[in-house]
């Protein structure tokens, strides 16, 4: 009896896991939702990064604490949009600036994503120093990872 219960439970678990697997690969069931999700994330990244650029480029006064917070936020934000390029978000280009080239060159896109994410981490580490001279090169390095990915993967 006990054996049967265990086996049933195991079978159910495996069955459920198999059934649930496609849904788990991405939180989205609709392409539209995936597109809005990643656009929302990129919008936050853009505004956050724009705020930091004001300090780096001398448009607003440098505030070490503010910069530290913003750079930490960027590290988190940098992890958000990319899940929405998979699952229902795969090949989703309606009302989107994402180009089909993303999915045609998926491993290259992934390596550009990784470059962005590690640049964001390095920027946040530099921000800990509170020294704008340490921050500036890391900030520009991060900006370059944005540009390198937009080039070819984002519509003009």
């Amino acid at each position, binding site marked *: 009896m006990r054996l049967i219960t265990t086996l049933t439970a195991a079978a159910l678990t495996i069955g459920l896991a198999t059934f649930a697997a496609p849904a788990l690969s991405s939180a989205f069931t609709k392409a539209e939702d995936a597109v809005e999700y990643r656009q929302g994330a990129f919008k936050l990244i*853009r505004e956050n990064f*724009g705020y*930091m*650029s004001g300090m780096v480029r001398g448009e607003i006064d440098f505030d070490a604490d503010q910069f530290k917070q913003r750079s930490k936020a960027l590290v988190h934000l940098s992890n958000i949009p990319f899940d929405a390029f998979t699952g229902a978000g795969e090949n989703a280009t309606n009302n989107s600036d994402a180009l089909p080239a993303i999915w045609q060159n998926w491993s290259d896109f992934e390596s550009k994503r990784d470059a962005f994410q590690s640049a964001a981490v390095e920027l946040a580490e530099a921000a800990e120093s509170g020294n704008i001279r340490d921050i500036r090169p890391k900030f520009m390095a991060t900006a370059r990872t944005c*540009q390198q990915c*937009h080039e070819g993967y984002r519509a*003009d």
Partner: protein
Amino acid sequence: MSTVTIHLWDGFVRGFHWLLVLVFAGLWYTGGNIDYIDQHHQLGLVMLALVLTRIIWGFIGSQPARFTTFMQSPFAIFRYFRRPTQHEYLTHNPAGAYMVVIMLGLLLAQAISGLFTDDAIFFRGPLAQYVSNDTVRALTRYHKQAFDFILIAIALHLVAVAIYTILKKKLIKPMITGKKEVASAAVANAPAQRHGGWGFLILVVNLAWIFYFLS
């Protein structure tokens, strides 16, 4: 045929032309590179001031610099290409005249659209905040795509100058020295000059307000 040397291009026209070359080269080099976006912005403001001043000079400057001196009906372009050597043109032939206007128009549109751009990374043009995001998007796209048209216009310009040089018609020297050799019969029509210094004064005023409001 006896020739005489007349004063054709005033100091401002010549200074404008070669400054344009320098500023354009700088804009080309800094464009599309996130590391130089601020320099691109500043150079774009210089370009805007240069082109605006040249347009003003085209109305109030020396006779050869004025649009009314060299602009003709568009049909004159066809007549010109049918018989290119029928007339001697002191300033621009009809095709060259339209090229001047097209070039100034493209550069002005490029400079103005640049003020509304957003690079989707961290740069926002000084006027982007005053228009909708759709407009920003459209003007950013225009700014990128129209650059190719400017390159084509410059290529055509250089080809035309090369052809003229092969045909032994001097275009480059007058744009450096301001002086041009013409048949002495034409001396009666020597164009009225205005000192180029006035043009540079207008340029300085334009630079001042443009940098004050748009840098």
